[in-house]
């Protein structure tokens, strides 16, 4: 019955051969070749440095023979073990402070009628944009035990001998780090709170819970995974941070893992020991990121039903001014005060004398711009290294995101995995891997621009990939198919349709990579040579020299460049382009 229910088919006009060889060749897509190129690039950028880091930690320096002596050296001295403990303690303390600072801010902005939400956003963005080592220098000027402004004012007011605050202390170091990293908590927690519908709170209210009980018993527990996720991120950021511990910790004789790694790189360079010593940092990061993924990935706990329900703001009454004061205070400590004293110092003959007309000078800027032999070179280096890395990372990320999303190649996930892998590798660890793999012959890239650009590319590949992935996913494949069926080839339709449509979001991603690369210190400091110093490294050099006026002026230049870039990014890619939750 079936056979006669369909139209009888005509005889095949051509014998049913499966197409000639020439036809088959013409029908092959060029993506297979691209796959090979990409996998090679990613192995070179991501896998090889990691593998080299691992193997070199088991090799004797001279002979390359297998040995465990590097580990024995790395963990054989009390000082080195203390640094490990210090790092963990510092990470915990900074993370706790960041939670305390950020969670009320996130709740206030997301759920209440607190005034000045725009200002709070500004404070968060500002804290995110100001490079951490600049904040650290600002805080040295504010809270240095002798001539810090806060202590000067304290002595003037009370006549006391002792300083009120001392930045060169463990709590001081932790606070300065937290003041820079609290935006991570803010963004995660606010995103979680944004998803909780008012109906959940209504349900608690109708059963007799007041606004405070509701917040404590319903709202905050729902945001709990995000808080924990933020805690882990700040902890990891802190233990991998180099600039702030180096600038504040070394004078204060607080040794942490990153500063200890730096010391292993002082002459004579002991890469093997550094590699062995970097292992806990790597393992802790990989482990905690896995834990964080687990926590944030548990659906049903994180409330996902916020979109439909109406969201009303909690009315706080007079208490809203208390919350506002909190947000403003954090903003002042994190951004306004350090930046103000930096700018003041950069125009001062002697920064400790404060604002006075006879203390004003342009000399610091003039020195940097016209006399300093490295300053302008480092500005140029920073711009072009960052631009090159952003372009390279963006191109790789876009191609991989495209191949994975459109399922064009088998095992596309491997490419995606390699792109995301650097996310769990602390920058400083990656730098040691790059040094071990490519600094010496056969490639002998030490001190070259190439080495820095490649390291930046690898380090920020995950940012670029997450961005491209989101952009490509948002683009309906039919947009491209419509071009193809009308006669455009795969590459032609990418060029004519896909690329123009992705332009805006790709530009946003490019700028983010450019900005974070332009202030990168912890990888750069291990990889620069005499002629390839970046602004961040030169700033660190200047901080060791201790001339705070010139240092502040250089910080001012760095900050001005960053602000211009952020402004461009906001104009092109939207106000929140740097703070979007990836």
């Amino acid at each position, binding site marked *: *019955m079936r056979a006669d*229910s*369909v*139209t009888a*088919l*005509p005889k*095949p*006009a*051509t014998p*049913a*051969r*499966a*197409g000639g060889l020439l*036809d*088959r060749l*013409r*029908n092959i*897509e060029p993506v297979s070749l691209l796959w090979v190129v990409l996998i090679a690039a990613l192995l070179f950028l991501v896998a090889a440095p990691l593998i080299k880091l691992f193997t070199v930690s088991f090799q004797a320096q001279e002979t390359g023979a297998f040995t465990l002596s590097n580990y024995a050296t790395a963990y054989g001295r009390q000082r080195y073990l203390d640094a490990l403990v210090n790092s963990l303690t510092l990470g915990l303390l900074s993370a706790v402070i960041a939670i305390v600072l950020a969670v009320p801010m996130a709740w206030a902005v997301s759920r209440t009628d607190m005034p000045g939400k725009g200002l709070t956003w500004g404070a968060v963005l500002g804290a995110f944009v100001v490079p951490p080592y600049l904040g650290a220098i600002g805080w040295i000027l504010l809270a240095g035990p002798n001539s810090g402004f806060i202590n000067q004012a304290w002595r003037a007011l009370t006549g006391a001998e002792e300083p009120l605050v001392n930045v060169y202390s463990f709590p001081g170091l932790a606070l300065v780090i937290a003041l820079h990293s609290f935006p991570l908590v803010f963004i995660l927690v606010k995103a979680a709170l944004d998803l909780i519908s008012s109906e959940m709170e209504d349900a608690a209210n109708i059963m007799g819970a007041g606004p405070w009980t509701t917040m404590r018993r319903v709202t905050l527990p729902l945001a709990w995974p995000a808080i924990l996720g933020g805690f882990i991120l700040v902890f990891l950021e802190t233990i991998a941070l180099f600039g702030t511990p180096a600038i504040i910790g070394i004078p204060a004789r607080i040794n942490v893992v990153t500063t200890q790694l730096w010391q292993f790189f002082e002459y004579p360079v002991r890469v093997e020991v550094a590699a062995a010593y970097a292992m806990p940092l790597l393992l802790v990061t990989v482990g905690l990121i896995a834990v964080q993924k687990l926590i944030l990935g548990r659906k049903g706990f994180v409330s996902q039903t916020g979109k439909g329900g109406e969201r009303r703001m909690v009315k706080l009454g007079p208490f809203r001014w208390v919350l506002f004061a909190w947000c403003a205070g954090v903003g002042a400590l994190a951004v306004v005060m350090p930046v103000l004293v930096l700018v003041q110092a950069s125009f001062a003959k002697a920064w400790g004398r404060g604002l006075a007309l006879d203390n004003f000078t342009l000399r610091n800027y003039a020195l940097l711009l016209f006399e300093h032999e490295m300053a302008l070179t480092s500005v140029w280096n920073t711009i072009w290294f960052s631009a090159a890395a952003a372009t390279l990372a963006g191109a790789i990320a876009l191609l991989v995101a495209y191949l994975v999303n459109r399922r064009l190649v088998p095992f596309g996930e491997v490419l995606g995995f390699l792109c995301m892998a650097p996310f769990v590798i602390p920058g400083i660890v990656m730098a040691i891997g790059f040094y071990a793999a490519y600094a010496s012959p056969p490639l002998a890239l030490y001190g070259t621009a190439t080495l820095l650009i490649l390291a930046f590319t690898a380090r920020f590949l995950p940012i670029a990939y997450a961005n491209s992935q989101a952009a490509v996913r948002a683009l*309906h494949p*039919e*947009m491209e*198919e*419509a*071009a*193809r*069926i*009308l*006669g*455009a*080839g*795969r590459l*032609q*339709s990418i060029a*004519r*349709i896909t690329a*123009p*449509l992705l332009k805006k979001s790709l530009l946003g991603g490019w700028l983010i990579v450019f900005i974070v690369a332009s202030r990168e210190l912890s990888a750069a400091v291990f990889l620069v040579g005499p002629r390839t110093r970046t602004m961040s490294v030169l700033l660190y050099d200047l901080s060791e020299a201790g001339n705070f006026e010139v240092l502040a002026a250089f910080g001012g230049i760095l900050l001005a460049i960053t602000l211009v870039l952020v402004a461009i990014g906001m104009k092109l890619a939207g106000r929140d382009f740097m703070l979007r939750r990836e």
Partner: protein
Amino acid sequence: MSRLVLRGLTKAFGKLTVVDSVDLALEEGEFVSLLGPSGCGKTTTLRMIAGFLEPTSGTIEMDGKLISSPGSVMPPERRQMSMIFQSYAIWPNMTVEENVSFGLKLRKLPSEEVRRRTAEILEIVQMSHLAGRYPAELSGGQQQRVALARAIVVKPSVLLLDEPLSNLDANLREEMRFEIRRLHDEFRITTVYVTHDQAEAMATSDRIAVMNAGRIEQVDVPHLLYTRPRTRFVAGFIGRTNLVEGRLAAGEIAFDGFALKAAQLADRVPVEAGNRPILLSIRPQSMMLHRTPPDANGRPVLPAMVAERVYLGESWDYVVRPRDSGLRLRVAAPPLQVHEVGESVWLEMDPHQIAVVD
């Protein structure tokens, strides 16, 4: 020669066979719909025709040339086809005019001709006054017209439409149905139209291929698909029907409580028929209710009783039970023909409108 021939076309994703040995031939200038519920494989079939998917087995030929077979698929851009997508896929970064002229420019036509043909087609779809607009500034119906113009202007060898009306509201959908058919009558482009909406398929198509679970169940002109469904699925999917099981024996088809003469269905009941079960599809519209015994004129007439009724505005929907039978038959009647529940009626059937199904 057939324009497009699908031969044993099959597509499997892993263990799941989505399209299962589909055979179909389209004549030049023919409009054929692939109609079926969601998940029946119609869009997958269309995407194989377009060259976006490679068949697992089977082939596709166009004008006698092999264009798709396992391991060798001519890419979409070389097929000279065009397609209208469910999302329209109007490029938001180009104006209406740029969207429409895209295919013509790719064909490297002289710019004078590109301009002339773009203007012509925009005139035909009544979009000339919006040529400079961007898609975001257009309504859903206008975007649909741009998609139509963009696909037709290149004079494709085959036009493919993938549920093009499913994102429009009901009134607009009805309007666009006629628009699509009008454009087909004007340009006579060989067309494959995928839809799950039978009214859409009926309004536009020369022939309809009803698909179910990856297979084509029946290909026919709309009229025959309705009056002569060949399978239980087609009878149930196209319009409403009563599926009645009976038994064929000794020139009679016996049902629960009554019987029909097999001779009245002579053209549909196999001659060699022995004693065997048989399934009939009787449309609600093909039966009539009477208060008094009608002059049947040789048609089967059964005494029955009204069991349920629903007033639908355009018609009455009665459920009647033939006397001494457990059967319940749905019968449509005009709005003024009112029967109460429990009333005795006479049920008249039209043997010409009864279909024998598998």
